[in-house]
């Protein structure tokens, strides 16, 4: 599978397109914008956007939807019944979607917002605003932030460490890095700094 990353300078947000290497039906995560550069990237890879996954129904994640729908006849998946003027397939927490060859696991995090969904495809996690590299998502109060930290601990950091995390904003990361260095865990005193070099690295024993 091929992953295309696009950064929107208007929204400071990331859009991802996942499709077969040889081209074909593809899925797009968070159409924050559909500009010429993204369109060129989609077309040059021979992708046809069949599915749109929305991690959060905020303008930064959906602003490009109108343009996208003019170009591609894509089904939209989100936590809400409609986004902008488009009907969506509602995602239920803890379920999976079978979109062609893509099996997508869906996890909802109402602790961040009622419409937050995290999508996992194989080893890739599209987590939207839930976390960004080194930081937890932003909530409206300290109480909500504490709730989110607990939810992350119970339902996110329990996943296998090999996962690659593609946030809605900022650079990519890995689940292992976030478990060790995310400020949400640091503030709760849960990070393990002395395990920074994971077991089995060359430095530790192999050389």
């Amino acid at each position: 599978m091929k992953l295309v990353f696009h950064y929107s300078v208007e929204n400071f947000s990331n859009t991802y397109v996942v499709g077969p290497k040889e081209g074909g039906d593809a899925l797009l995560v968070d159409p924050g914008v559909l500009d010429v550069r993204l369109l060129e990237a989609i077309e040059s890879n021979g992708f046809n956007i069949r599915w749109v996954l929305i991690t959060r129904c905020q303008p930064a994640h959906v602003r490009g939807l109108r343009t996208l729908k003019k170009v591609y006849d894509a089904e939209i998946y989100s936590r809400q019944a409609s986004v902008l003027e488009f009907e969506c397939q509602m995602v239920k927490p803890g379920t999976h979607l079978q979109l062609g060859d893509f099996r997508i696991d869906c996890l909802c995090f109402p602790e961040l917002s009622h419409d937050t969904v995290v999508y996992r495809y194989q080893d890739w996690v599209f987590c939207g605003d839930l976390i960004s590299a080194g930081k937890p998502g932003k909530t409206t109060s300290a109480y909500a932030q504490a709730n989110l930290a607990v939810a992350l601990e119970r339902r996110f950091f329990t996943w296998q460490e090999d996962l690659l995390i593609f946030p809605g904003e900022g650079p990519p990361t890995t689940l292992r890095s976030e478990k060790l260095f995310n400020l949400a865990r640091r503030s709760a005193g849960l990070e393990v700094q002395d395990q920074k070099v994971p077991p089995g690295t060359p430095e530790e024993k192999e050389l």
Partner: protein
Amino acid sequence: MFSIRICTTAGCRRHAVERSDVCFGHVSDRTAYLEDLKSWMAPQRDFAGLSLGRQVWEGMDLRGRSFEGCNFMGCRWENVQLDGSSFRHCFLDFGVFKHCSFQKTSFLFCSVSGARMESCDWKGSDLLHVNFNALEAMETQFSESDLYFTRFIGAKLNQVDFIDCNLKKTQFTGSWLQDVNFKYSNYEEAEFDVAPGAPGVPS
């Protein structure tokens, strides 16, 4: 983008390396494997989807190479020349970098978190959307680089130069800065919230 394959050795959870079913630790003859890999890579310029985690890159000349969606997690890089190379969507987390030259490289949307870096030179590079969280860097040069939207959250930086850099949206939250030089850089546009007791923010 690389796909994660787990080593076929019973009980091992590490990533299998390129052209093998086992991780680097379980390759029967590592020296031969590395030689074979080097000779395979030597004539090529562009690489995509390689999985080469936990390997040792020593004294290699990888100047001008292009890597897309590659896995270099946990690698040790020593005296490696990477000037003018390009990395897109690559993961180099938990790497150890010593005396490496990355001059005028282009890193876009990469992760280098939890790495250790000593005497490395990134002068004149484009490091956009790069995750350097928890980096431990010593005597390292980032001068004349574009670090837009790059993160050094929780990093420990000692004798590191950011002279004449673009630091717009660069984040140093919770980092520890000792003898870090931000001269001629737009550090007002960066985000600082240094760790308690840390030596200081730019003056």
